[in-house]
């Protein structure tokens, strides 16, 4: 008569495994079409975030630079890097680079970069982590964007936590 509970136990274990596998699949690392080197641009070349993420201080979205922005410097290859060759090819073809978004907020959230950067005076690193130090594309966001994270920061800085401030 012990088959019953054993079966139950087996099922439970199976469910656990399935869930685990599923979660690991969901959390697959993000691969970028070009192995962009943030460190090279920021630390070595001394660029500012807003040099490429043009609207980080003025816009709702900071924007991920694409060929038009990159072409300012990379219209012709400056090094013999393979990755840069890829970029130059993109620029030459005029095709947009299919960058993958790392940080995003859901549709029901109103997030404005300007509100946080230019007006709130928050450093990019606060929410984006040490992106400037990454020498190759980061597979996962440094800082996980969660509502609790937003709310904690709002609490600490004495900003209102009224839901209507961010939820639209």
């Amino acid at each position: 008569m012990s088959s019953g509970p054993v079966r139950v136990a087996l099922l439970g274990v199976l469910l656990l495994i399935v869930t685990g596998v599923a979660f690991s699949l969901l959390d697959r690392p993000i691969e970028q079409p070009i192995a962009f080197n943030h460190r090279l641009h920021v630390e070595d070349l001394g660029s500012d975030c807003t040099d490429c993420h043009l609207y980080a201080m003025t816009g709702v979205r900071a924007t991920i630079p694409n060929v038009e922005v990159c072409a300012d410097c990379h219209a012709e290859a400056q090094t013999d890097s393979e990755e840069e060759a890829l970029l130059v090819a993109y620029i030459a073809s005029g095709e947009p680079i299919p960058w993958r978004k790392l940080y995003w907020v859901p549709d029901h959230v109103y997030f404005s970069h300007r509100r946080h950067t230019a007006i709130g005076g928050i450093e990019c690193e606060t929410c984006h982590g040490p992106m400037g130090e990454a020498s190759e594309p980061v597979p996962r966001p440094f800082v996980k964007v969660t509502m609790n994270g937003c709310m904690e920061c709002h609490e600490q800085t004495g900003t209102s936590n009224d839901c209507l401030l961010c939820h639209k």
Partner: protein
Amino acid sequence: MIVPRREFLKMLGVATGTLGLGGCDRDWLVPDRLVELAQRGPGLESQVPTICGLCESGCGLTVRLVDGLPVGLKGNPHHPLNRGGLCPVGQAGLEVLYAPNRLRAPQRRGAGGELEPVSWEDALAEVGGLLGKMRSEGQGSRVALLTDEPGRLFHDLAARFAQAVGSPNISSTKSQGLLPFTLTQGIAQVPGFDLDKADLVMSFGLELFEDGPAPLHAISAMVGSRQTEERAAHIYAGTRLSAGSSRAEVYVPIEPGTHGALALGVAHVLVREGNYDRDFVAEHTFGFEDWIDDQGRERLGFRRLLLERYYPDRIARICGCDAATVVRVARRLGEAAAPLAVVGGEGSQGSNATWTGVAVHSLNALLGVFDRPGGVSLPPPIPLTPLADPETSSLEQAESIFAPGGSVGAFGVDAVEKLAERVIDGTYPIDLLIVVSSNPVYSSPAGQRLSQAMEQIQSVVVLTPFLDETSAHADLVLPTHVFLESWQGTTTPAAVAFSTLGLGKPVIEPLFDTRHPGDVLLELGRAAGGPAGAALPWVSYPDYLKERMEGLVISGEGSVVTGSFEESWVHFLEERGWRFLEHRSLENFWAALERESGWWNPVPARGDWARLFRTPSGRFEFFSQTLERHLRDVGGMTADVEMSEEEALERGIAAMGSQVDGDEVLLPHFEPPIASGAGELQLLPFRPITARGHLAAVSPMVAEMFGYPFLDGWQTWAEIGTDTAHDLDLADGDLVAVESDRGSIEAVVRVHPAAVPRTVHVPVGLGHVQPGGVADGIGSNPIEIVEPIRDNLSGVLSTTSSRVSLRLLRRRPHGGPAPMDGGH
């Protein structure tokens, strides 16, 4: 069952990962819209002014662009017409732009009757070739053009085009209701009514705030631009109480078609009580008192006619209202500082529309409101560059198909009916019909005849952004831009007291392979070649617009609209003369126009009576000498024999078929309306604000709020009074067939407690049958079952003269009473 991707993943969430979807991207976690928005850019906003092209008003718009894509519309607060307001149809502008059913490329009707795509080049070459051939063979008059594209600028270009191809046949499908003003003032335009300064407007059948040439202007002028508690009052006389008229100080419910009688009753009281402007009447009117003509005959004066024939008791009998109400309304008008009487809507759609118009306009004369603030005047002319005459001398000037004439002595014609009849009976052959931005098959009572005629015409070209009833009969359908994609030039709508010129610039690249109708006409002219091309020298429509606007710069009149509309500012300028050369060059002016989207001139020329009254007497004519002369001519033409003027006049009157006699015919009088059909109710189609323009049916939002005063949508309703509903044993929500002798349509009964008994009001706007919009096959079109009866004086077909009966099809499917049906 289609499962949306995101939903599916959300629902099955974890399980999907293991079920072989391991290959899917993490990107599915990011909602589609965010991906789209991110691709748009940083979310930078701009506001660009332009002009609404959805109806004839041409209100000013401000388009909200985010990263260059239009995402919102609002009224332009600087624009003098709407001053920031925007009607529901205007709000739907973006839905019209992004509508899923837009025409994407030119289409030609193939042998099998199906529309097939064709390139612009081929399409234009084909029509252009045909035009060139016809012109060179002297067959230009076989071309006809119908256009409702708003604004005089386009109309001038179309007229030039017609001229260039040698055709005298160009018309709008809309009747302007000019005749009352021609008869009384001798002008061929609707004068301006200064709603901005009027303090009491009495409307005969015109739903001021919903219908008419510029309802948003009426709202902003009478209410919106005024301080709290200072709005202009209005009185409404008609058969139906619309949402806008429910704010009327007095609602005078009257029998259909008796607006003119009421106006005369009011005039009677004004005259009897001496409550009229004696100075104005003495100095600037003709035919008020009895008079002796050249031949020494004593002629009837308006005063005597009023006092003898239009006493309130009789009016009350005719109109089915209370004599006391007539007196009350008249006294209220007499007391008002700046009263106005206007006519329109059902008042100008009856078989007696012209006489109603004359009677109502006579009130303005009695009240002496001409040429003064808050009164009737002519809007200052817009000093557009005149178009030089093209070299058309080589062409024989044929008579236009739209020329009045024939058996009855009408002043004008119903363009659609005339075209249809003459094509069908073969008296005026047309080989090429070009229809621009117009859907006469749907909107005209003669639409069905027109569709028959179109089958006989060799080539029908329709320029439209959407497939519609008219393009269903076209051989070639040329897709046009919607207004947000194109340049537009609009001019003052009728009845506005000031002049405006709107310049709309495109706010977005055309989404599809479409063109502006103006560009199409220019290209057709070029394709026709020879003098036709030479007569249309402009490369593109904006080129043409620019050239026309040079006149504004040279004249230096008016101003580009800037800053918010300020009453005191206008007053200031008015006192000092509105004339300062703010723009010295065309480029400069054009740039300013582009930036602000409009020009206006609010200063009418005061004291120019000769311009205001261009009648034989140079005065406002109660006794219309223009009509007398016309009827005499008509009478004279009926027989070859020589006859006396008197005899000719009598014959003319007989030909016109008036129901009164003697001099009364030539004075403002009441002609009983003619109604046809066996039903017990009079059908009065009306245009709700949600049916403005002919593109409304393509907006899901407009369709969904179509019957918003009844909290209803997507339905054509038949509005009847509480008593009528009771008599017919109908309740709110019942589905009925509205049956006339010509056909039957389905509608849902809506009971309105204030509708006049024995009338049924059905809105136009739904009931489209072509797959151009979201509301196709939904609702019905009352115009389909209208028995067309002609106003013998203007030649225009009446839409309110049909008698119908209601037949119950289905009881209200569920639930209790609607709020207006006497809910507990």
